[in-house]
């Protein structure tokens, strides 16, 4: 596809326009590339001509049709007048046909009817851009209402979320209540420091020979620990377990 090579390949698409050669990368970096070409205001799209410079609705005079309405701003009244005139013109036409079908006035009446209908359609066409702009405005109104709704619900959610988080933080930073002491009914009595003494008592038995006094002390300790007055304490249960384990050995 590049020009200058031996074989000229035929591309199915038309070549880019000649002025595209002026826009090389160097020239763009330089800043010396020409300004972009102006957009067209007259072009053909799918065979239909578009002339953007003209007014959206072509005035009647360009089509050679006489304007019948006087006051453009009073749309409803003018339309109704045209409607009535159409019926009246038809009536006149029928009258002429009854009396003298070959009279030249027949052609005149037919043209009058023709003009009236064209005027009616022209008025409607003139109103179309106004209708379009009005629908854009209504669309804007709806968008604004939707945005306001979204903002309000969002604010609500944010408030609720902040509340919850604040509550949680207060919970975390506050002091916890101390754990409650077990009641008498739970059948477990806590004895401080006894576990440690018990463990030491058993440890010492594995060491070197013990003296008589130590033996006696150990025996007394065991007895006091395993005394069965009141509900069995944790120490009692533990000593019993240790005893069982030593028995099993």
């Amino acid at each position, binding site marked *: 596809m590049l020009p200058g090579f031996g074989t000229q390949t035929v591309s199915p698409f038309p070549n880019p326009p000649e002025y595209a050669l002026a826009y090389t990368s160097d020239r763009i970096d330089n800043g010396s590339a020409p300004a972009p070409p102006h957009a067209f205001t007259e072009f053909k799209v799918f065979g239909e001509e578009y002339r953007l410079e003209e007014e959206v609705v072509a005035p009647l005079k360009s089509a050679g049709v006489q304007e019948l309405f006087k006051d453009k*701003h009073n749309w409803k009244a003018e339309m109704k007048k045209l409607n009535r005139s159409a019926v009246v013109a038809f009536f006149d*036409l029928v009258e002429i046909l009854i009396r003298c079908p070959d009279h030249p006035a027949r052609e005149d009446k037919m043209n009058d009817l023709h003009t009236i209908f064209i005027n009616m359609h022209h008025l409607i066409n003139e109103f179309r851009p106004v209708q379009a702009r009005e629908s854009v405005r209504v669309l804007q109104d709806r968008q604004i209402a939707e945005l306001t709704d979204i903002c309000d619900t969002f604010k609500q959610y944010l408030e609720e979320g*902040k509340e919850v988080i604040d509550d949680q933080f207060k919970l975390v930073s506050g002091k916890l209540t101390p754990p409650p002491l077990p009641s008498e009914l739970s059948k477990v009595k806590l004895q401080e420091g006894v576990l440690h003494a018990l463990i030491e008592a058993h440890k010492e038995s594995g060491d070197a020979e013990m003296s008589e006094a130590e033996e006696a002390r150990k025996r007394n300790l065991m007895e006091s620990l395993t005394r069965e007055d009141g509900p069995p304490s944790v120490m009692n249960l533990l000593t019993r377990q240790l005893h069982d384990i030593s028995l099993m050995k």
Partner: protein
Amino acid sequence: MADRMTQLQDMINEMASLMTNAIGVLQATAPPCEFGAISQELEDEPNCAIFASSIAKAAKNIEILIDSFPIDSGNMEDQLEEKMLENDVEQRKKVDELLDLVSESNTLVKVVQNKLTEISHVQMSSRPNE
């Protein structure tokens, strides 16, 4: 169901076609008549009445439809443009408000995430050593 403008256009076209059809049909299907006298058959022609009533109805319908338009006389274009510019300004304000709310919610989410990572770290580190 087309919009009212299109409906109006269709109705005008309908009335025009009714008029042309009336004249054409009556002329084409007319029975032979004598000069000067109107025969009984001509009087009894039903299409006359039908066409006349439908043309009258069409005209009346057009008038009713025209009346139903929410158009107030006067220069609507300037008013419209003013309102559109107002709406544009207000929409920008609302969008800015929404953006602020979104950024606020983002900071809130970050705070919550930080706390959650803190909690998870503490939980992991407080597991008993094995």
